[in-house]
């Protein structure tokens, strides 16, 4: 049929569409502003009218409840400040908060794992806190040195450490006792650790279930071991991977041998080791106190203890992370909110003993040395490792390299699909590529 009024021609229609799309595209491509921010001068303690601060973090487990209790306590001490907390899984947190900052919807403050601080500092989504630390009266001598320094990127402080969570050795006392081992004296060095595993093996028990696949980070045990054996993950500038050196290969071979000797089941998933431990099928569990102390305490009738990681290499070392407070970049800083934020940071640092209930060791030395902390048996045992904790280097983008390159390679070896030296060499070559790309990207961002 013929139309009396022909519709707009195909070309006109497409032209219209293309024009609209072009306009939409141009409208959407504003680049974020990352110029340096000067925080306004504000009073040290906020005493103005009531206001509400927003606080984002990844505390979705039992630790979230303890943080909320602390916030209530803070609200009682400072009735004019309400801190509203939003918890989401860490991976979502690191995706969402930079977007919130860029779109001008940033929360006032956040809590972050230390190995993400350098990345976000380079991205300019958190602000330098050098003066803030001074103002709220925090100094290096109040903290364990490594922990205090882990908040400093390129000579500027970006975060205030709240706690530290070194990987530790959790041991199942009943399994040890049943095998004829002393349940109060867990092995602390290589010889006694291997001897204990042999004794357990004689009873038909795989004593150290070693996760070969674990979204939470299968490689933290490897990190600790290679540090113990004198290795380093990266060079100081973070431009080259060193984990394929002799220490790394030795560490990974030691882990692989545990599996080959039957001290660990094969194809262990992250959660399996934990389930086996809780069911008295596994004697030793390496992991962080933040998750495990509460988790294991919640199991009735489980008899367990914790000590720092055994010394398998020639020096003690434990992988550790640390939760650290950061202040998000705002389009404009409201002096009142900033003053309230300082008030909160100062209060929670001084009252971080309450946080120790969640499992981690508080970063403040005076808190760790307090009598109240000494009463927390498990946390005190974990705190023995504080002088020997090791962090990832403070290089922007380092977590990507660990989680997308090194850990899959380790997983590969522990699953029995690759040889330690070859897998680590290949990972190092791949890491070099990503490290270089990151270096260029973040150098451009800062210039």
């Amino acid at each position, binding site marked *: *049929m*013929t*139309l*009396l*009024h*022909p*519709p*707009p021609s195909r070309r006109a229609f497409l032209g219209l*569409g293309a024009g*609209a*799309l*072009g306009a*939409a*595209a141009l409208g*959407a*491509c504003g*680049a*974020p*502003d*990352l110029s340096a921010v000067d925080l306004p001068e504000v009073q040290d303690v906020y005493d103005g009218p009531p206001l509400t601060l927003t606080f984002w973090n990844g505390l979705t487990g039992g630790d979230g409840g303890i943080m909320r209790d602390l916030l209530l306590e803070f609200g009682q001490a400072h009735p004019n400040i309400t801190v509203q907390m939003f918890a989401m899984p860490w*991976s979502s947190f*690191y*995706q969402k908060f*930079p*977007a919130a*900052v*860029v779109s001008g919807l940033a929360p006032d403050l956040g809590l972050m794992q230390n190995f993400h601080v350098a990345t976000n500092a380079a*991205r*300019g*989504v958190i602000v330098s806190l050098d003066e803030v630390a001074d103002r709220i009266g925090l100094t290096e001598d109040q903290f364990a040195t490594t922990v205090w320094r882990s908040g400093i990127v390129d000579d500027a402080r970006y975060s205030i450490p709240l706690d530290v969570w070194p990987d530790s050795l959790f041991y199942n006392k009943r399994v040890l006792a049943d095998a004829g081992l002393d349940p109060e004296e867990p092995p602390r060095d290589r010889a006694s650790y291997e001897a204990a595993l042999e004794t357990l093996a004689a009873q038909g028990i795989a004593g150290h*279930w070693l996760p*070969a*696949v674990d*979204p939470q980070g299968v490689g933290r045990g490897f990190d600790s071991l290679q540090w113990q054996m004198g290795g380093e993950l990266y060079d100081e500038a973070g431009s080259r991977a060193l984990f394929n050196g002799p220490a790394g290969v030795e560490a990974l071979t030691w882990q692989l041998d545990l599996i080959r000797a039957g001290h660990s*089941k*094969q*194809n*262990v*998933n992250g*959660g*399996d080791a934990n*389930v*086996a431990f809780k069911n008295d099928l596994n004697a030793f569990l390496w992991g962080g106190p933040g998750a495990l102390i509460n988790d294991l305490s919640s199991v009735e009738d489980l008899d367990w203890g914790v000590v720092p990681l055994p010394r398998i290499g020639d020096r003690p070392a434990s992988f550790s992370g640390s939760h650290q407070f950061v202040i998000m970049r705002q389009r404009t800083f409201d002096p009142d909110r900033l003053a309230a934020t300082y008030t909160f940071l100062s209060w929670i640092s001084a009252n971080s003993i309450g946080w120790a209930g969640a499992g981690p060791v508080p970063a403040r030395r005076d808190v760790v040395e307090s009598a109240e902390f000494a009463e927390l048996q498990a946390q005190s045992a974990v705190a023995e490792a504080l002088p020997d904790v090791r962090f990832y280097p403070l290089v922007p*983008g380092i977590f*990507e390299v660990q989680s*997308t390159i090194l850990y*899959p390679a380790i*997983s*590969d070896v522990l*699953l029995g*699909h*690759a040889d330690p030296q070859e897998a680590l060499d290949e990972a190092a070559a*791949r890491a070099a*590529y*990503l490290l270089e*790309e990151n270096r260029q*990207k973040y150098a*451009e*961002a800062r210039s």
Partner: protein
Amino acid sequence: MTTAELASPAVRENQGPERTTPRTRSARHGSRYAPYLFLAPFMLIFGVFVLAPAAYGIWISLHNWDFFLPSRPWVGLGNYIELFDPTALVAVQFWESMRATGLFVLFSVPFLVVIPLGLALMLNRTFPGRTFFRAVYFAPYVLGVSVIGVLWQYLLNANAGLINYHLAQLGIAEAIPWLTATPWVWVTLVGVTVWWTLGFNAVVYLAGLQGIDSTLYEAARMDGAGKRHEFWHVTLPGLRPVLLFVVTITILASANVFGQAYLLTGGAPSNETRTAIMYIAQTGFEQFRIGKASAMSYILALLLIGVSTLNFLLFRRQERN
């Protein structure tokens, strides 16, 4: 439409002057903009959430783009060229993930096309409890991918899972690494996906089967055709348009596999099951290397457009024959 067409020449001659009055216009042909007005609500949403982002994606893919960094240098086709440079890490990982997606399509599509067809043929018969079984086979499809991910993770866990536990009771002592070793990971991913989505394809087939004229079957029977002949010469030709739809949709859905692999295997072992969408999401939304991720998306999209076109052409040629 037919009456309007038949009437139109007369209308044009006799009622020409009146044709601009609103009543006749809308009754016969409508305003020339009417179709677009009716399309507008959809086009608006489609334009804002699909077309505009897709066009913007091309622009992004030509830059070294990071959402949150102020400098976004123009690299032209650099991102695309890098994806074809065999020495670049990103290219190695991208094609590794494309291989995973390709394997998944290869393994899953035949099952997802054939099994639901058999199921639909059975459910198309009359027997007591037919509606119940139709519901049963469709049921898993209503579950979200997160639900089936968590569910099967528990069931298939190598050391603490229910399936290996029962296999052990049956005398299979060796724990099967369902989620951590080839070829078991593929058995898992394909098996779970088939279980999960076969209901959808079965329902589509069922609708197609009910659209086949029953007189054709009668005629075939008169000519002495057996069940097998009925299937090959009546059912299948009758289902051709439905089959084209099912094959196309299934290939596209399988090529977009993400949730199952993400939740069940996490890409293990050795990124063997890290699919293209998973890698693109990781690059773009975890590492914020959005320029590269956009370039990868375009390559994947072009490939899928190619495969779908090929699919259409093949079916059309068959039809001509």
